[in-house]
C-alpha cells in the first residue's frame, strides 16, 4: 500500500466509518441521558430554571471566583491553554474548515497557518503538562483511571500527527496525513464511550446544575 492509497482510504471509507461510529455513539449517549429526564420541581420556584440553566452554560466557562482560580491554578491554566489550542486547531485551520464546510455547508475564515501551528504547540505542551500533573500530583493520580490516559492519548495523537504532517516530519506527507486522519478516526470511535463525551454533555450538566440552583434563586 502506498501513502497515497492509505491516505485515500483514510479520507474515504476510514474516516466515514469513524464518523458514522462517532455520530451514532454521540446521539446514543445524548438520548440515553436526556430520556432519563428530570422530575418536575413542585416547589414554589424563585426563578426560571431554564434561564439560569442557560446562564450557567455560559458562566461555567470561567472559574467560579478568584480563589477557586488560585486553588486550582495549574489545572485551570493548563486546561485553558489546551482547550484554546485544541479549539483553534480544530476550528480555525483552513483545511479543517473545509472539512466542516463539506459536511455542514457553512464556512468561516481560518487563521494563518503559523498561528495555528503555534496553538498546536501550545496544546501539545499543555497536554504534556496535564499528563505530568496527572501522574505526579497525588490527588490526580488517585482519581485517574485507564480511561483518563486513553482519552489523553487519543486526543494527543491527532495533534501530534497533525503537527508532524504539517512540518513534513518523520514520514512522507501522505503517510503522515493518513496517520493523522487515522488518529482522528480513533479519537472519533473512542469518543462517545469515554469522558471525551464531556464536550457535549457538559452543556447538559451545566444546564441542569444551573436550573436546579436557579429555581432556588441561586445565581451562578
Amino acid at each position, binding site marked *: 500500500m502506498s501513502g497515497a492509497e492509505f491516505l485515500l482510504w483514510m479520507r474515504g471509507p476510514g474516516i466515514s466509518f469513524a464518523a458514522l461510529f462517532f455520530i451514532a455513539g454521540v446521539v446514543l449517549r445524548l438520548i440515553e441521558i436526556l430520556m432519563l429526564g428530570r422530575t418536575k420541581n413542585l416547589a414554589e420556584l424563585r426563578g426560571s430554571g431554564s434561564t439560569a440553566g442557560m446562564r450557567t452554560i455560559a458562566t461555567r466557562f470561567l472559574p467560579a471566583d478568584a480563589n477557586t482560580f488560585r486553588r486550582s491554578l495549574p489545572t485551570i491554566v493548563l486546561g485553558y491553554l489546551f482547550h484554546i489550542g485544541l479549539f483553534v486547531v480544530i476550528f480555525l485551520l483552513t483545511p479543517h474548515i473545509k472539512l466542516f464546510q463539506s459536511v455542514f455547508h457553512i464556512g468561516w475564515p481560518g487563521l494563518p497557518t503559523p498561528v495555528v501551528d503555534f496553538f498546536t504547540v501550545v496544546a501539545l505542551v499543555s497536554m504534556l503538562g496535564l499528563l505530568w500533573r496527572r501522574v505526579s500530583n497525588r490527588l490526580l493520580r488517585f482519581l485517574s483511571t485507564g480511561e483518563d490516559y486513553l482519552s489523553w492519548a487519543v486526543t494527543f495523537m491527532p495533534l501530534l500527527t497533525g503537527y508532524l504532517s504539517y512540518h513534513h516530519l518523520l514520514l512522507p506527507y501522505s503517510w503522515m496525513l493518513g496517520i493523522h486522519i487515522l488518529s482522528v478516526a480513533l479519537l472519533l470511535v473512542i469518543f462517545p464511550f469515554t469522558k471525551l463525551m*464531556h464536550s457535549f454533555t*457538559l452543556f447538559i450538566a451545566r444546564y441542569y446544575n444551573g436550573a436546579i440552583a436557579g429555581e432556588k434563586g*441561586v445565581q451562578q
Partner: protein
Amino acid sequence: MTQPSLEKGVNILREQIDGPVAAFFSSCVHCGMCAEACLFYTETGDPKYTPIHKLEPMRRLWEREFTFAGRIKKWLGLAPPISDEELEQWQPVVYDSCTLCGRCSMVCPVGNDITYMIRRMREGMAASGNAPQGLIGATTRAVKLGSPMGVKLATLEAQARHVKISTGLDVPFDEEGAEYMVVLSSMEVVNYPEYLEAITRIFHEAGKRWTISTEAFEATNSGIQIGVSDIAAELVGRIVAAAEKLQVKTVITPECGHAYTALRWEGPNLIGRPFLFKVRHILEVLDDLREQGLLQTSGMENDRITFHDPCQLVRRGGVVDPPRNLLNMVSNNFVEMEDHGTMNWCCGAGGGVSANEAADEIRLKAFKRKKAQLESLEVETLVTACANCRIQLEEGIEENEMEIPVVGITEMLAAHLVEHPSSDEGEQP
C-alpha cells in the same frame, strides 16, 4: 420489621438515576477541582475525600445499567455489581466527610451538581443499612418522638412560659388563621432559647399574627440528611398537615439550614404536590418586615462582625441578601469573609455530620478552614443563621482556643428592636 438489604439499597439507588445524574457522570473529566473546593480534602489532603469519588458505587451502577457500553461491559463480566462491602467501605466518605454543602457543585468546570448526587446516593446507602448509627438514631427519634433530639412539646411549653414571664408576651399555640406558622429546630429549643423570645418580640412589634402548632413544631428533617425520602416525606407531611389545618399563609423555618431546604425545596417534591402555603426562612420574613418598615431597630453594633453563610440557606437555598440587609441594619462594621455568600466555606458539621459521632474527629479538622478564614479577618463577633453551624463554630472556636463569640442573627436583631409600649404593659427598660 424488615431488614435493610443490599438488594433494597441497589433498587433504591436505581430509582435515583435521572437525566442530571447521567449528564453529570458522563461529564466528569477527573480534573480534581471539586476536591480543591471541599474542606474535607483541603484540610486533610487525602484524595479519598474528592467529592466525585464519593459517588463511585453509584457511578458504577449508572454505567452498568443505564449506558449502552456499560451493559456490554456487564455482559462481558467487566462490570461487577455493587457489593455490600463496597457500600460499607464508602460510608465514611458519603456521610462523615460530606456536609452536602454544595461548594463542589459551584466550581465543577463541566457543571456537575455533585451534591445533588450525594443526596441521592445516601438513599441507597441508608436502604442498604449503611447509614451511620448516629444518624439512624436521630432519624428514629425524629419519627418516633417528633424530634431528632428527643424534644417534646412540654419542653417547648416550658420555654414559652419563660418567654411569657420575661417579656409578658404569649407564645401563641394552635391559632387558626394566623399569618405565620413558626416551626423550630430542636437545637433552638434545647440550646438557644433566645430565638423563641426574639421572634415573639419581633412579631409582636410587627403586629403579625403567628402561631406554633403543637402537632408539628419540629422543623428539622433527619430524613433528608440520612437520605430516606420516605421518612423525609413523613416528617414534611406532619408540618404540611398542621399548616393546612391551621390555615396559615406562610410557614417560617427557623435559623437552621437543612430545615429550610427540607421544607422549602424538597418538601413539595417529597409529598408529591405543591404546598397550599408559602415556606419562608425567618431571615426572608425579617427582611420583608424590614422593607415594609415593620422591623425597626435602634443603635448599632460597633464590633467588627462577619457573617457565616449556612450552606443550605445560602448556596443551596438562595437566601443570600437578606442576612446582609439585616446585619447592615444593626452594624456599622460588618465585613465579609474572603469566600462568602454562595462561595462560603462550610462550618464542617452540616448534612448530618454533627449527628454522626463517627465524624467527630474529621468534623473538627474540617473546621480549620473556617478558622483560617476567621483569623485572616480578625473579627470580634461571628454572626450566623443556623443553630447547627453555630454549635460547630462555638465548638471549633473553643477547641482552637480562639475568642470569638457566635451570635444568631435573629437574636442580634431582637437586641436592637425598637419596642413600643402597648396598653397593658409598662415601659420597657
